[in-house]
């Protein structure tokens, strides 16, 4: 269970996952934020009003997946690094997962990295297709990973080969 291990259960995830139908229509964000904590920057960062207004700062974020276009703005403002963008329309058998990342060195576009799941286990390989960084992002970079489609709901981190 999440409160014991830090790993959300499939039931937790099912609650916040965009629908199959929505996933089939392009990039969309998923907020893996399961606890009522006093926090709301995600809401303020979304320019499309896709994150529903918080009546109380302790509410959990609710993304309107219809309004969300997967732009990824909220990823860099979330202090919990809990929001990810998934694009299952990336190619026939690959999906794109955008991951907020705060470790150095940054990977380089084209790198093949170990794809890691929520429990910290390597589940396959991924290719780094884009590294978004810069002063404006203030240290929270966004790494675009190309992963096998069946792993798009598994991969949430990566390890660079040869870097501990």
């Amino acid at each position, binding site marked *: 269970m*999440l*409160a*014991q*291990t*830090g*790993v*959300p259960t499939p039931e937790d995830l099912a609650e916040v996952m965009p629908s199959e139908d929505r996933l089939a229509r392009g990039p969309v964000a998923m907020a*893996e*934020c*399961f*606890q*009522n*904590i*006093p*926090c*709301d*920057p995600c809401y*303020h*960062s979304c320019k499309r009003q896709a994150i529903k207004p918080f009546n*109380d*700062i*302790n509410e959990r974020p609710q993304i309107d997946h219809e309004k969300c276009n997967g732009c990824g703005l909220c990823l860099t*403002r*979330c*202090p*919990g*690094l*809990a929001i990810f963008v998934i694009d299952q329309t990336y190619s026939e058998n690959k999906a794109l997962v955008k991951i907020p990342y*705060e*470790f*150095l060195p940054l990977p380089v576009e084209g790198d093949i990295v170990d794809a*890691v*799941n*929520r*429990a*910290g286990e390597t589940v396959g390989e991924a290719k780094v297709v884009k590294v978004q960084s810069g002063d404006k992002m*203030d*240290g*929270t970079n966004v790494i675009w990973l190309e992963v096998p489609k069946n792993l798009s709901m598994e991969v*949430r*981190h990566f*390890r660079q080969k040869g870097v*501990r």
Partner: protein
Amino acid sequence: MRQTEICIIGGGPAGLTAALKAAALGAEVTLVDRNDYLGGQLIKQTHRFFGSKEQRASERGISIAKELADAVESNKKINVLKKATALGYYKDGVLLVEQDEKIIKIKPKKLIVATGGAEKTLLFPNNDLPGIYGAGAVQTLVNVFGVKPGNKVLMVGAGNIGVIVSYQLLQAGVEVAAIIEAAPQIGSYWVHASKVVRAGVPIYTRHTIKRAWGDTEVEGATIVELDDNWQPIEGSEKDLDVDVICLSVGLSPLTELLWQAGCQMKYVPELGGHVPLRNENLETTVPGIYTAGDAAGIEEASAAMMEGALAGINAAHSLGYDAPDLNKQKEKILMELTGLRSGPVGEKIRRGLAKVTC
């Protein structure tokens, strides 16, 4: 003897905000901090903060510290004494401060104590070996001085501080073997926990440290599982090969000056230890002495800033300073503070505050 209208002890988020608010109302302020920098705990917090937009959520602690410190240092109404330790407060209302090996006597009309907290420790065999640190100390080493405490760490305590410092150790290239937590649940915000777990650090709840190993420094640790009554389960011991043990088992308020001033104190576990009784204006039972931030009860920086703002406004107001929107300002802060503490993670704080607010 120096005279000042308001003396604030502590230049963390609470003290800095108190100074800015009091000065904004027109009061003349002296701010005392024992460090050679302002910002308190914030200057080592490289992570983005939680909280509301008004309270600078999503900004990093270090950026908030810099902003507040710059505003204080450039404010002509505020006289800052750095590397200055408040040593004692006496019945005649005189505060003794040591700076550059000299004693300064200050006689303030009002005093705000915002001294923050100190790390607690744990009892276990060999807990005095070099290589055993408080988590806050490790955070200072790594984030302020750029020094690695070692190569492989066992973190004891899965509250926000333990988990955040583990994350920052990973960022500094230090391996974290595990985070252990005696309670059946992770105490930190779960998003923080998920962040370190996916980076490869396991969290073991219902576990504690049994002993540390090593002759002259830490060479390992034995951890053990706990049963429903928090008793070690025999045979469940595990040895971990680590060279650093980091204790993150809570903070307790730094209240010596409040004791000395004769403020009525109460032991409130929810707030981290002994804290002063206070009214809604954050004034203690000794008239003219206010408190704010972790010194008033261990909480977090957003709350510390709001409490500091309230204490600053109230202290200045009691000296006759006023503003047309003073009540509005106070109400707004009180509302935000209530909002911040209203959720399930604020339950403990609410329970604690109910015991000391009169």
